[in-house]
């Protein structure tokens, strides 16, 4: 009997409903993990890798930001986007990564487009990371 039930949903669809022993997520204040009987908790997520551990097996998702909520051993991830390894368009992610990095370099840190561009780089990085595993 797995310890947690996990639901990953995006505005467009329900990505997955899983059983998990442990969930590791990219919080805005740093990565964190969740196991059985975690205290009720809600966190903003940044683009990155969500890892689901179940019976010693790990499944990864590339998240495009969102937030996560835990209560009563139920984990809900409300993501802007979430892709499993097979769904990732590596070519596109690579292109997005190079283009955004270029643009980011030309921007000043205080530029109003800086955060969006930085988030784009992080999203692409997350995709490439998950795809590379």
């Amino acid at each position, binding site marked *: 009997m797995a310890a947690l039930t996990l*639901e990953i*949903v*995006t*505005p*467009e*669809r*329900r990505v997955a409903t899983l059983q998990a022993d442990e969930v590791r997520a990219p*919080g*805005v*204040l740093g990565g964190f993990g969740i196991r059985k009987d975690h*205290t*009720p*908790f*809600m*966190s*903003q997520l940044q683009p990155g890798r969500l890892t689901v551990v179940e019976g010693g097996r790990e499944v990864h998702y590339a998240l495009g930001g969102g*937030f996560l*909520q835990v*209560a*009563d051993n139920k984990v*809900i991830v*409300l993501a802007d986007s979430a892709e499993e390894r097979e769904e990732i368009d590596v070519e596109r992610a690579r292109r997005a990564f190079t283009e955004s990095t270029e643009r980011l370099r030309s921007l000043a840190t205080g530029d109003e487009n800086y955060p969006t561009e930085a988030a784009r780089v992080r999203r692409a990085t997350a995709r490439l990371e998950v795809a590379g595993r």
Partner: protein
Amino acid sequence: MPSLRDIRRRIGSVKSTQQITKAMKMVAAAKLRRAQEAITRARPYAVMLEQSLNRVASRAGSDEGAAHPLLASRPVKKVELVVITSDRGLAGGFNSNIVRRAQRFLVENSDKYGEISISTIGRKGRDSLKARKMAVRKDYTGVHGRLSFEKAHEIASELSERFLSGEVDAVFLLFNEFKSAIAQVVTLKQFLPVETGTAETTASVDFLYEPSRAELLADIVPRHLDVQVWRALLDSAASEHGARMTAMEAATKNAAEMIASLSLQYNRARQAYITKELMEIVSGAEALK
């Protein structure tokens, strides 16, 4: 009395019309199915997001007074009405119901609110409101065809900005809510300020919030608004196809009826013509005797 040839030609023309309406009905049915699936797929996120919003908002408001500006209601003087219609016609009362409701809204509320601005999504609504000499502040184009969440996000952010800058004090969405393939309900929904319910479940549990309750709220509220627009668009799209399917089914049936009555007329005329000819032959033969 139309001639045999005239009737035949009319039957032919009605038949080809019927073929078109039949094809449109089938296309609408296929699109309806896809639109319905999109609604179903979007539901879990919307429901869970609303629960989170209610939970965070109810607590944020209670102790630190850190409620989000998009939740704050103020005396309403200027309102914006967002009218969602389709780009294409031939969908029965789909668009005209919305436009009529919009007009009624203007008439009923013109003295209640100082100023009502209108923005439109969908060509049909824009055109008929313009034809009725109503000023349209902004028309969001290129929304239909391929609905995307980004577009919903764009619309939602622009409306939020107008609300925050004080250009409007309230925003309403007017759209066809999808009930079933044959039932669409014209719905007026308050979009801004956001109304939050109270969290029913686990309200007793104290959540930990990261980075903080206020920041989470600031993150959730815009997402919630995106979802509201998104759902209105999805509902409207499904309703449109449902309405078109019903309208085209009725048209196909009417065409069938028309063909039946024209065929009857045609056969009667043909028989009358044969009878007449026979009589002429017989009387000609009689005369020769």
